[in-house]
């Protein structure tokens, strides 16, 4: 909308209302409320016209709103001028705004009539309106309203006759009612066939339609209302339509912001269906479809799995491509063509969201790979340690045992013949046994054989027996678990008990391992000094890494002076 047009519309509205006030000055206490309500209603249509022009420059709706506003007010200005020519033009034109209102209603929201039939209806409405008002003017003597010589002359007057004037008015009222009925019926049909955005966009119109229908019925049949209600308050009902339109326009201006909010509110990794819902809400079009190109030229499918022809959309639908999305499209209510900027914004928002989702999925996949490879590395390490322990057992340990037995036998044989040699062999045997003990400790540190042999039950029992702090086992599940799970649980207990012995200054500790659906929960607690922290390069940090390597979580609860509670939650099929 150009600046000039806006200036002209604002200037015109001020001028029209100014003229109206000037023409009816000085205010007459009887008519002042009626005239004020006229001015307000006319102004509301003019403001709605500016809003419509601004919002939908491609639509003629702004023009139609403006025309209704002027047609509402100008005839009264002419009549008030007390000039014969002005009066003779103004008086028959007083009801013509009704036809313009019907035009506005049927042309909503594009400003264009949909069919030849509807065109005919509107032409007929304008014609009957002008014809009947002209005809009734022919029988109306301005003196009927009691103004004597001050009245302007009626240049159309054929015969001064109240009965004839009444008769024409009665027929006009009936025809007008029929026309209103036809127009309202057509509007309801538009409403029923409209979907999504178009239907929402019709809400202000429905108000106007209801108001017009109510006004027609009330002024036509219930003429016994007091003058003030009929002439001053009823027109105010008309205000609702333009007011609602202006409100909906202001809200539409915030739709761009709503799009931003919709995208921001979308949680990471939301499905395309959620994205569609967010966009549909922000756009105000419940029929919005987000469709993706299927691989192999199989057309498009929307988020609910429905096939969509992106090249030839159904009637009443329009398509916009989403940039950088490999052929994804938005299919929306055609009425939204009136708001191309909003559609463009929506497509851009969708593009960003899809790109975001793609990157998210990529990062997720990479993270998954890193997790899997970390688990594999830890598992490979475990397997290697198990192998090393077995090699030590089968090899060096075995040989040392044999050696120490051989030395024992040699000592026994030498004992009688050569006591000195026997003592020498005996000390060699001691060395061999000590080497064996050290080797056993080393092997156990590399990988506890008891874990391989007996699983957690025996292994934890062995750990507890070796712990210098009095430790009780509350629960350890029987049965075997995957090697990585057993090894992790074992290392948690082992490291925790080592910490208890080294740092906690505890009197007692407790080990609990429980099987939960899909996981194994290892808990070690003590009544010591507390204050343990998983950060800062401690053994706990390494333990947390170890637990994380199998997808688990290590929690440390260690208030100063309140003991330490270590809990590892390990996924376990």
């Amino acid at each position, binding site marked *: 909308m150009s600046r000039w047009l806006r200036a002209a519309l604002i200037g015109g509205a001020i001028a029209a209302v100014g003229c109206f006030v000037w023409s009816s000055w000085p205010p007459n206490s009887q008519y002042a409320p009626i005239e004020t309500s006229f001015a307000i209603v006319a102004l509301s249509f003019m403001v709605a016209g500016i809003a419509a022009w601004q919002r939908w420059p491609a639509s003629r709706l702004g023009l139609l709103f403006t025309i209704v506003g002027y047609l509402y007010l100008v005839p009264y200005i002419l009549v008030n001028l007390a000039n014969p020519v002005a009066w003779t033009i103004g008086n028959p034109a007083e009801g013509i705004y009704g036809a313009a209102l019907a035009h506005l209603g049927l042309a909503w929201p594009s400003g264009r009539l949909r069919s030849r039939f509807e065109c005919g209806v509107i032409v007929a409405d304008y014609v009957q309106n002008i014809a009947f008002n002209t005809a009734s003017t022919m029988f109306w003597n301005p003196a009927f309203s009691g103004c004597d010589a001050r009245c302007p002359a009626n240049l159309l007057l054929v015969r001064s006759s109240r009965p004839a004037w009444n008769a024409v008015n009665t027929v006009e009222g009936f025809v007008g009612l029929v026309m209103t009925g036809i127009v309202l019926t057509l509007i309801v049909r538009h409403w029923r066939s409209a979907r999504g955005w178009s239907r929402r966009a019709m809400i202000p119109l429905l108000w106007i339609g209801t108001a017009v229908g109510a006004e027609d019925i009330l002024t036509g049949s219930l003429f016994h209302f007091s003058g003030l209600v009929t002439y001053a308050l009823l027109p105010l009902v008309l205000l609702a339509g333009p007011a609602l339109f202006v409100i909906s326009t202001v809200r539409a201006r915030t739709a761009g912001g709503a799009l931003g909010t919709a995208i921001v509110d979308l949680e990471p990794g939301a499905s395309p269906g959620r994205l569609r819902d967010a966009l549909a809400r922000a756009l105000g079009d419940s029929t919005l479809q987000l469709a993706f190109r299927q691989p192999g030229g199989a057309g498009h499918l929307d988020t609910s799995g429905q096939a969509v022809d992106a090249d030839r959309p159904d009637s009443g639908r329009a398509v916009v491509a989403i940039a950088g999305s490999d052929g994804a499209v938005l299919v929306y209510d055609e009425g939204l063509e009136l708001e191309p900027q909003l559609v463009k914004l929506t497509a851009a928002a969708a593009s960003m969201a899809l790109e975001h989702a793609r990157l998210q999925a990529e990062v997720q996949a990479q993270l998954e790979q890193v997790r899997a490879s970390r688990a594999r590395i830890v598992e490979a390490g475990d397997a290697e340690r198990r192998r090393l322990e077995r090699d030590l057992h089968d090899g060096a340990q*075995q040989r040392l*045992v044999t050696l120490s*037995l051989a030395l024992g*036998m040699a000592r026994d044989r030498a004992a009688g013949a050569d006591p000195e040699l026997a003592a020498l062999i005996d000390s060699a045997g001691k060395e061999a046994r000590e080497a*064996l003990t050290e080797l*056993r400790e080393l092997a156990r540190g590399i990988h506890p054989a008891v874990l391989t042999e007996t699983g957690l039950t*025996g*292994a934890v*029992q062995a750990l507890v027996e070796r712990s210098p702090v009095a430790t009780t086992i509350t629960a350890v599940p029987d049965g075997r678990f995957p090697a990585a799970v057993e090894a992790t649980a074992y290392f948690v207990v082992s490291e925790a008990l080592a910490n208890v012995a080294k740092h906690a200054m505890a009197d007692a500790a407790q080990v609990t391992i429980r099987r939960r659906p899909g996981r194994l929960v290892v808990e070690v607690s003590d009544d010591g000094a507390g204050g343990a922290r998983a950060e800062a390069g401690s053994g706990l940090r390494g333990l947390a890494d170890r637990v994380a390597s199998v997808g688990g979580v290590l929690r440390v609860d260690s208030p100063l002076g309140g003991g330490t509670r270590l809990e590892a939650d390990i996924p376990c099929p």
Partner: protein
Amino acid sequence: LIVDDHDGFRRFARGMLEAAGFTVAEAATGAEATEAVLAVRPGLVLLDIALPDFDGFEVARRLAAVPAEGPAPVVVLTSTREARDYGGRIAASPAAGFLPKDQLSGAALRRFLARDP
């Protein structure tokens, strides 16, 4: 009967035990062990836990399950590892006890025989 897959150990153990007055037979696997028990009817089986086919616990279980004519042999498990490396499995086994390999001696075995009539 000495059951162990390690030749060197079997040789030394045999030498030691024969010197201590035992009559010794040998087996290298769990399967050989069950056959040898039926064939030679030993008074005592020195059974290594780590065997190539099935482990010593399994062999001990099978020996206990064999319907025996006459007195069943006293089964003593042995290993280069220590008893605590096997947790509760030794106690749960029908074997009479456990003897670490490096503490093997005729006297030690006689103690088992004396305890288990």
